[in-house]
């Protein structure tokens, strides 16, 4: 475990991307099978072991230390696994380098041979044998919580560099491989053949767009481009091959298990790029739900019958990458689009349709359509070069997104909470409010990004100097008509909400600007937000 813990620590503290690539390559070079394979699976989050749930870890630590002291610690550290790793009460003095510490392969193989119920007991015994870095690595491993700024792309690049092969070769093989990937490493080291793509329905690297800039339009001829709505769902890829169907996120995570209703409706051989939405047939058409409807289905490992009924998953197709045995990615967008329309017309219309194309002759005409979308779940338009092939990554000049202008309000900072992760120690999560009555602020939302690191330092200082009360990690900040900090808050949508005291809920709020100059008394009133909702509905 120590070697793996060292790798995690070095990856966490090394800022440079190239240095991370070389750390991973060194690790693959020096650590034998199967350990390197399990480590790869762990950081790529592809390791199938009976997961120990955060709630079970909380129970473990609660059996070993005072809950209140643990609570203070967790608030301070901001990461459950790290807090437990550091605060774990050691039975005996555990010296670094103690040699009965369990190894990574031992841990993984033991867990794989155990039931879910045995997990917490095993973890507890291992925690007693490890030092704090080892405990941290173990806990991250068993909770599957490796969000350490390593994209799956970077990991695949490290493998590609290690084996001197193209990264897209790895990308397309990836979903057919299983830990500890002995065949992959053998191929990369030149001691074995290239693994055959055993996995049906592999993920295909996604093509992404750039945000369009006002100056771009002068350089672009509208006749070269097609446009369609940009739907506010999540971008997914539906693929099926040899009877295996899968749904992937745009980063290649397999989310099939959470969307059985949609995956069961995949009755084709090929790969579609599109938007995952909640929608259902209604009066001969399709009624598309909002992003908050979709949220009922996101970040779940399993799904209930009720969720399937109330929030049915729907696929709105943008592109066709593979039709049967034919790879279409080299064809131009306009050609793929014609194939897509024919392809989708043969699919179950309750689950699949084609994204509508928007006819336009000039950018002004497109701007007018963008300004007046028929549904609130549309967040702008996509502009695609008719001649563009489907290129993985974010190629320049091919696809553009032109999002709707955000809503803007001026709101007053009311509460600040210490951040977690990278920003622990800074007051970085802000609750802001608007005036309901003169002198009465009502909280309307929370934002924790949109500002620069320098602005964060300045806000943090402001919060510390203007605290009225402290509740654990939260500070209540002085906010009245004459004293207080005004934020210009940008957000993408607004809806009524019974769960919020103010009765409104914003979508994707962020700090657009700091208004040090603005007296808080001149910030917006709740009525303004209510009018915005009326405008949307």
């Amino acid at each position, binding site marked *: 475990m120590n070697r793996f813990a060292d790798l995690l620590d070095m990856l966490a503290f*090394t800022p440079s991307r190239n240095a991370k690539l070389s750390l991973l390559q060194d690790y693959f070079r020096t650590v034998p099978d199967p350990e390197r394979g399990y480590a790869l699976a762990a950081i790529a989050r592809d390791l199938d072991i009976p997961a120990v749930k955060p709630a079970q870890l909380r129970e473990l630590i609660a059996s070993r230390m*005072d809950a*209140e*002291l643990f609570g*203070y610690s967790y608030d*301070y550290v*901001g990461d459950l696994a790290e807090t437990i790793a*550091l605060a774990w009460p050691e039975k005996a003095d555990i010296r670094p380098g103690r040699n009965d510490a369990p190894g990574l392969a031992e841990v993984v193989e033991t867990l794989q041979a155990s039931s879910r119920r045995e997990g917490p007991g095993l973890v507890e015994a291992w925690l007693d044998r490890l030092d704090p870095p080892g405990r941290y690595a173990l806990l991250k491993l068993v909770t599957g919580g490796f969000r350490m700024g390593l994209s799956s792309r970077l990991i695949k690049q490290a493998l590609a560099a290690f084996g001197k092969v193209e990264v897209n070769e790895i990308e397309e093989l990836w979903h057919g491989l299983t830990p500890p990937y002995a065949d992959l490493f053998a191929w990369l080291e030149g001691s074995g053949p290239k693994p055959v793509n055993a996995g049906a329905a592999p993920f295909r690297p996604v093509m992404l767009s750039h945000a369009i800039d006002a100056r771009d339009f002068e350089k672009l001829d509208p006749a070269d481009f097609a446009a369609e709505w940009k739907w506010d769902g999540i971008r997914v890829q539906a693929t099926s091959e040899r009877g295996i169907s899968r749904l992937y996120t745009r980063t290649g995570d397999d989310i099939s298990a959470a969307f059985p209703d949609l995956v069961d409706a995949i009755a084709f051989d090929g790969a579609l790029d599109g938007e995952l939405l909640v929608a259902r047939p209604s009066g001969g058409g399709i009624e598309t739900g909002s992003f908050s409807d979709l949220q009922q289905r996101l970040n779940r490992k399993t799904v209930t019958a009720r969720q399937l009924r109330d929030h049915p998953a729907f696929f709105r197709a943008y592109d066709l990458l593979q039709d049967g045995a034919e790879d279409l990615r080299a064809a131009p967008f306009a050609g793929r689009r014609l194939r897509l329309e024919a392809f989708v017309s043969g699919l179950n219309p309750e689950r699949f349709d084609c994204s509508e194309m928007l006819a336009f002759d000039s950018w002004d005409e497109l701007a007018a359509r963008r300004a007046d979308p028929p549904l609130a779940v549309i967040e702008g338009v996509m502009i695609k070069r008719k001649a563009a092939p489907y290129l993985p990554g974010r190629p320049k000049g091919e696809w553009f997104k032109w999002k709707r202008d955000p809503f803007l309000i001026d709101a007053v900072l009311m509460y600040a909470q210490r951040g977690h992760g990278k*920003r*622990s120690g800074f007051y970085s999560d802000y609750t802001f409010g608007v005036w309901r009555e003169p002198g009465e602020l009502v909280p309307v939302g929370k934002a924790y990004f949109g500002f620069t690191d320098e602005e964060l330092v300045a806000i943090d200082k402001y919060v510390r100097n203007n605290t009225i009360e402290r509740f654990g990690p939260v500070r209540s900040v002085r906010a009245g008509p004459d004293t207080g900090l005004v934020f210009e808050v940008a957000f993408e949508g607004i809806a009524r909400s019974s769960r919020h005291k103010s009765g409104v809920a914003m979508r994707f709020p962020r700090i657009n600007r700091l208004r040090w100059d603005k007296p808080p008394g001149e910030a917006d009133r709740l009525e303004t937000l209510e009018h915005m909702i009326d405008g949307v509905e």
Partner: protein
Amino acid sequence: MKPEDLLIPRREGLYCPPGDFFIDPVRGVDRALITHGHADHARAGHGHVLATSETLDIMAIRYGADHAGATQAAGLGETIRIGDVTVTFHPAGHVLGSAQIAVERDGMRIVASGDYKPRPDPTCATFEPVACDVFITEATFALPVFRHPDAADEIQRLLRSVSRNPERAHLVGVYSLGKAQRVIRLIRDAGYHRPLYIHGALQKLCDYYESQGIALGDLRPATVDAGAKGDFAGAIVLGPPSAFGDKWARRFPDPLVSFASGWMQVRARARQRGVELPLVISDHADWDELADTIETVAPGEVWVTHGREEALVRWCAMHGIPAKPLHLVGYEDEGD
């Protein structure tokens, strides 16, 4: 007499009405007793200052000889009468000259520990527990997640990194009073005797430690004249952490930023500062040491100040020791 009649928190700091003095006041007062030379405890501009001779020397180095109207040196263990109270200074083990201050009247004794650490430190006198009715403890690292590893092991990690990266300069962030000299001494004790390069901000205090008999070995200024860029390859450079984001740091080849501080225990803290090699070396008591100290001192009551008061108060409650937070303002939460 209640303990609150002997010492009470005021805006300026901890005040003793029968002796009419403050301990570590955060603004200028007529009569100040100072526990140690860190800037948030020792400020310039008091009428009279009573402190150990080392602390007075350090204040004179930092603020000039005229930092106070008058000064008086307190010997460790020496009984000094002020008004209706007596005070004694006892070693705190935090930095050179650091002392706990015991204030006593009519059989009631309160010990204000300032900042302290019980583990041995080759650069200052070792902490000495003093029996008392009220023990005022710091709480800088008062959370169960803070268990400082052995400082010598952390120095080994630094030296291993230096030998693994011979082409890079290691920039080690250290506060200029105490941490710098302790880290240098520990590096020497680990058998590293090559020159160490120091930022100008550390020079005077390192010289002072040397004059007090703490040998620091071959220290050289980390100036450009000391050599061309390549000459710092494989070198260890020590400086205040604030200097590393500065133009000053550009003179070093592919610098590897390290920081010696108790805060480095928390990963996010290290990452926020862009630290590549966090060294957990602290001049404060860690969680276990705070608890052990309270058990050893066995006071009737504990007052908790600067830091994570709530956690230590909770620990005291669990162990049946009356405790309360003092809510003194103006002390840096984060210095170490």
